[in-house]
């Protein structure tokens, strides 16, 4: 079902857009050269979501396009700095440090529809909101992030986080705080079984389940009670991490630290009252384990309303689960006026704020090229980054991309991605959040 085979919703609109383009248009070839020039257009641009990706795009496009109508659809007043949640759950940061009002980052001139998108009709180029009102677009940027599918774990609900020894750093800022309390309670018991999990699906910040394991271990060691705690790590994947060198490093480190690894076993059920967790292998075998503390990481996918739309991948590895985008141009594979950015897209890796930083200038350049009916030359190399905390106080700055077998792509030649260091920790603790806010403003 190709958009190109269908009649456009409003004949002449595309022509009108093209005519509206001013003479200030930039040559799109070198990415760095496109930033300064503004182009004029009457395009109606709708951005779904004002998280890391949505705000970055709103700022970039509002600066780049004059005359365009840019609308951001976002229900929440507050912006969460999610990468800080692992530090909140580990007792390093206070929760308030991760919150800012969305309004602080939304540029003037951009319309903010404070509501939830409930449907996308890609053929009619129309968004339906939860209150049944509609929005039409010429260009759509899907930046809704992803959805946490707790319902796929029998007996699990985000409401359980913080009770019965259950933690989950992903659920929300509040849940990160409750996870911290659940860990505190477990540590105060002075011993017992801890289970850390990672699901069989792609997840945002694939390093977060590992970071939670290491920061909890760090706290146990600080109490000098390591021998009284048993730690197990269950992952639905065959490995620990997508970057091969880091994968080997982590396996070795887990073994050294006596954290038992269980691969290809994902959490399928939890009995909170009895503190029992069920894990299932790909062949259907199940194993039930007792725990005193469990860190639950649910399976993830694109939000339901995206899954129910024509924009979802219809074949291949991302079928039915993630937005169908070209992983290099970030344009939709079937609807050329649709672009995807952030966690929602189907890509081998890339569900990090660091990826958004690399994707945003590509999406900006390619939307401009699309409006000018020029080839889309800007390409995303799959850059992602994980400040992999290996202890409270040290980390590795792991940066890589999906080209060349997940080759390392270090930003700073003087920081070795294979080395644990205090500097990488200081970057995580003090500098990545400012870099994130500068990214939201479209300034990096």
């Amino acid at each position, binding site marked *: 079902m190709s958009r190109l085979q269908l009649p456009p919703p409003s004949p002449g609109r595309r022509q009108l857009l093209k005519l509206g383009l001013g003479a200030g248009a930039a040559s799109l070839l070198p990415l760095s050269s496109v930033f300064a020039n503004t182009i004029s257009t009457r395009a109606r641009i709708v951005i779904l979501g004002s998280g890391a990706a949505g705000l970055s795009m709103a700022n970039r496009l509002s600066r780049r396009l004059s005359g365009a109508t840019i609308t951001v659809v976002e229900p929440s007043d507050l912006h969460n700095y999610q990468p800080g949640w692992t530090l909140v759950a580990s007792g390093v940061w206070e929760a308030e440090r991760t919150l800012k009002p969305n309004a602080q980052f939304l540029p003037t001139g951009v319309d903010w529809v404070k509501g939830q998108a409930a449907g996308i009709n890609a053929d009619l180029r129309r968004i339906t909101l939860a209150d049944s009102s509609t929005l039409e677009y010429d260009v759509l940027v899907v930046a809704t992030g992803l959805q946490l599918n707790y319902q796929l774990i029998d007996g699990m609900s985000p409401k359980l986080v913080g009770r019965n020894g259950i933690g989950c750093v992903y659920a929300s800022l509040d849940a990160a705080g409750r996870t911290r309390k659940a860990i505190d309670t477990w540590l105060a018991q002075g011993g017992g079984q801890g289970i850390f999990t990672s699901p069989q699906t792609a997840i945002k910040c694939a390093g977060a389940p590992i970071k939670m394991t290491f920061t909890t271990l760090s706290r146990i060691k600080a109490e000098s009670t390591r021998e009284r705690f048993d730690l197990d790590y269950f992952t639905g994947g065959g490995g620990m991490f997508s970057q091969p060198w880091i994968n080997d490093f982590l396996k070795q480190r887990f073994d050294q630290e006596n954290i038992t690894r269980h691969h290809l076993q994902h959490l399928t059920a939890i009995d909170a009252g009895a503190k029992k967790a069920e894990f299932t292998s790909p062949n259907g075998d199940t194993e039930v384990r007792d725990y005193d503390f469990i860190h639950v990481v649910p399976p993830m996918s694109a939000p339901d309303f995206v899954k129910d739309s024509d924009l979802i991948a219809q074949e291949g590895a991302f079928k039915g689960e993630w937005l169908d985008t070209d992983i290099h141009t970030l344009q939709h594979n079937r609807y050329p006026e649709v672009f995807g950015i952030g966690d929602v897209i189907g890509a081998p890796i890339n569900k990090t704020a660091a990826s958004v930083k690399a994707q945003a200038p590509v999406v900006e350049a390619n939307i401009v090229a699309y409006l000018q009916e020029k080839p889309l030359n800007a390409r995303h190399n799959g850059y992602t980054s994980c400040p992999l905390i290996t202890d409270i*106080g040290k980390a590795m700055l792991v940066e890589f991309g999906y080209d060349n077998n997940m080759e390392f792509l270090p930003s700073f030649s003087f920081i070795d991605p294979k080395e644990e260091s*205090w500097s990488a*920790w200081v970057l995580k603790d003090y500098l990545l959040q*400012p870099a994130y806010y500068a990214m939201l403003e479209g*300034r990096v």
Partner: protein
Amino acid sequence: MSFSLAGIFAVLSHAIQPFVALILIILAVLIAVQLVARLRSYRTKAHHCKPAMIVALLAGLSAVWWLPMLTHSQLGFVTSIVDWLALIAAALGVALLVWLVLHPLSYLVRGPR
């Protein structure tokens, strides 16, 4: 991933925000002491004060221990060359700052020497 100069300034402008009050207080103390002392004929090279030098050195040395703690870390995790260079640079900064305050202050308190 590379950063432009404007990008670096954008990041730094956010990074210093939580510390603006602290930075302003330190600068105010530094400028006030220097200014008052200089108005009373203090000259850096002409005045000698060993205790100010010793305290500044001790402050710098102790910073090697407390700076990592201030960042929720510990000296034991300062391992790479970059870590050590950064820590030494910061400790030197602390020592210099302490000396720049104490040296003119000793002139004001004890008079010219």
